[in-house]
């Protein structure tokens, strides 16, 4: 287990990058604490897999340094970094038994057979794989195979970090719940440093202590799930996290007063704006109260999605989504109120603080 320092990392797949746009990964400078659970979240092409491969050593970074517990590993190959990785599609050694799959990384490093036996049977226990121990890995289901991949990492006592590259892609929904919570439990119990790459917000948020949201090669926010949900620092984070995503409405601001179209209402504070910036108001569908007071809206559609309903409505010509309880219904003359301390104001897409 190790602390991972990423120092001024930049990566380009082009040999002689000139402008910023040539970089698949723009300036990342951050420290991942020992024993932390981190998720890299973002749409495809945002650079999250590039960053993961740089950490694992499968990719040699163009600029910057990577330190494991203060030791520079930038130039080291994956086998020299003592990391483990679980891939999108299960990778197992087909011809070996489950037991031998787990023993493989140990035997490769010349660990004695007694120690191998002890470590493997411990790991099999941890992952509920003992009953498969003597089975050939071929022909097992995808979820068991993913556990085997994970086991090959966990079996090594000296592993610095375990990396996951969208590991639940090929797993059925019900098994996802099991695997996800088991992974979380393993992290709580054994405290490995874990890095999890995904485009699925539920996986990222439930897994990680800290979620790193990436967009077009840049980190736009790092925070706890709660921070990302309640105070997205960029409109992209608001949109990307939550379903439906945050409502982002163009707004005119004068002191405490916000104006959407011809509707005016008071904010909780005075946003600290620089003049001339484009301003938007962000409010999550969960934090809009649908009732008979407030701003009048026209309701276009109500989607019953089981556990709750999504109301698609409009304030004048601005579309908004509202989440209401499964037992609730839409009033005859619908109005909405934005919960004041849940409103964020964005200037040129970045969140600004509210002054008193």
């Amino acid at each position: 287990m190790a602390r991972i320092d990423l120092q001024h990392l930049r990566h380009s797949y082009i040999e002689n990058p000139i402008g910023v746009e040539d970089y698949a990964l723009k300036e990342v400078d951050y420290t991942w604490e020992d024993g932390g659970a981190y998720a890299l979240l973002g749409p495809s092409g945002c650079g999250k897999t590039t960053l993961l491969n740089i950490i694992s050593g499968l990719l040699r970074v163009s600029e910057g340094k990577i330190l494991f517990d203060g030791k520079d590993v930038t130039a080291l190959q994956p086998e020299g970094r003592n990391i483990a990785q679980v891939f999108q599609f299960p990778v197992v050694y087909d011809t070996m038994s489950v037991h031998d799959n787990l023993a493989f990384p140990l035997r490769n490093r010349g660990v004695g057979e007694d120690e191998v036996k002890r470590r493997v049977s411990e790991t099999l226990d941890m992952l509920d794989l003992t009953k498969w121990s003597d089975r050939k890995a071929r022909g097992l289901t995808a979820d068991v195979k993913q556990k085997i991949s994970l086991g090959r990492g966990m079996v090594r006592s000296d592993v610095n970090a375990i990396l996951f590259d969208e590991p639940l892609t090929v797993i059925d929904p019900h098994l996802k719940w099991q695997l996800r919570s088991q992974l979380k439990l393993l992290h709580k119990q054994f405290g490995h440093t874990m890095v999890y790459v995904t485009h699925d917000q539920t996986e990222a948020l439930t897994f990680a202590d800290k979620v790193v949201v990436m967009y077009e090669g840049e980190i736009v926010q790092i925070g706890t799930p709660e921070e990302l949900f309640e105070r997205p620092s960029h409109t992209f984070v608001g949109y990307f996290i939550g379903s439906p995503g945050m409502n982002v409405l163009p707004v005119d601001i004068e002191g405490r007063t916000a104006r959407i179209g011809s509707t005016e209402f008071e904010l909780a504070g005075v946003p600290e704006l620089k003049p001339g910036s484009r301003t938007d108001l962000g409010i999550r569908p969960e934090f809009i109260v649908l009732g008979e007071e407030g701003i009048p809206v026209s309701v276009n559609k109500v989607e019953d999605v089981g556990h709750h309903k999504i109301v698609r409505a409009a304030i004048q010509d601005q579309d908004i989504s509202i989440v209401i309880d499964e037992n609730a219904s839409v009033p005859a003359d619908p109005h909405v109120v934005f919960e004041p301390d849940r409103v964020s104001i964005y200037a040129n897409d970045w969140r600004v603080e509210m002054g008193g």
Partner: protein
Amino acid sequence: MNKTQNNKAWFLVLPVLLIVSLNAIVPLMTVVNYSVQETFGNNLFFFEGVKWFREVLASERFRASLLRQFSFTFIILAIEIPLGVAIALSMPKKGIWASVCLVLMSLPLLIPWNVVGAMWNIFALPDIGLLGYTLNAIGFDYNFTSQAISAWFTVILMDVWHWTSLVVLLAYAGLRSIDDSYYQAARIDGASRWAVFRYIQLPKLKHVLTLAFLLRFIDSFMIYTEPFVLTGGGPGNTTTFLSIDLVKSALGEFNLGAAGAMSLIYFLMTLLVCWLFYTLAMRGEEK
């Protein structure tokens, strides 16, 4: 739930059925027919039961050519399969050189059998052939027309030259279909080059290698043109393989009954070995 079944579609299968019966079933049945009869010319045939089979199986000559056949097949398989895999492993994975290698590799496969035989005949001639001359020049006593060992050496070298490419191409295609994450996982697990081969590449190559093995086995069992052109089965009978012996017996000596019985035994043996190998290779595989 009574549906009118239109059976006319079956007529569409007829042409295939006809062709197959003309080029496979009819000849096979003719052979079966010959194998149980005795003829003295003039189209006079007598039923003989299994006499020919008994005679062929007991004959020293058949056993000798069968042994030669198996030795030959075993040797070329033992060389071509590992060599083919080794070459495929060392070929570049992408880029212009991958294409160049592939084209070079396919060349021997494009040359007709008799040309291969003739080429090697000239190539190996001890007085003027490049191979024969060189070998003698560096001190080997080499003459494939008079020495059994030289003849075998040449026949095997020729077959390896001609057919290893097939194994290379199959193995190369098989290797390319392995997902990169397998190699990445192996690097992370600290696997040696040998372990990568043993636990990733070889298992993933199993299907194509089974195919390569069967193709090369059947082909080598049927080998005729190349050694016939090269050595004519000699010196003596030392390179007289089953098929050469068969032709000698059927056309050279007009011994139709014995040749018929021999072909059938030969055919059944090939079938048996293929079936055995396939079953063993696919054992424990779902679907």
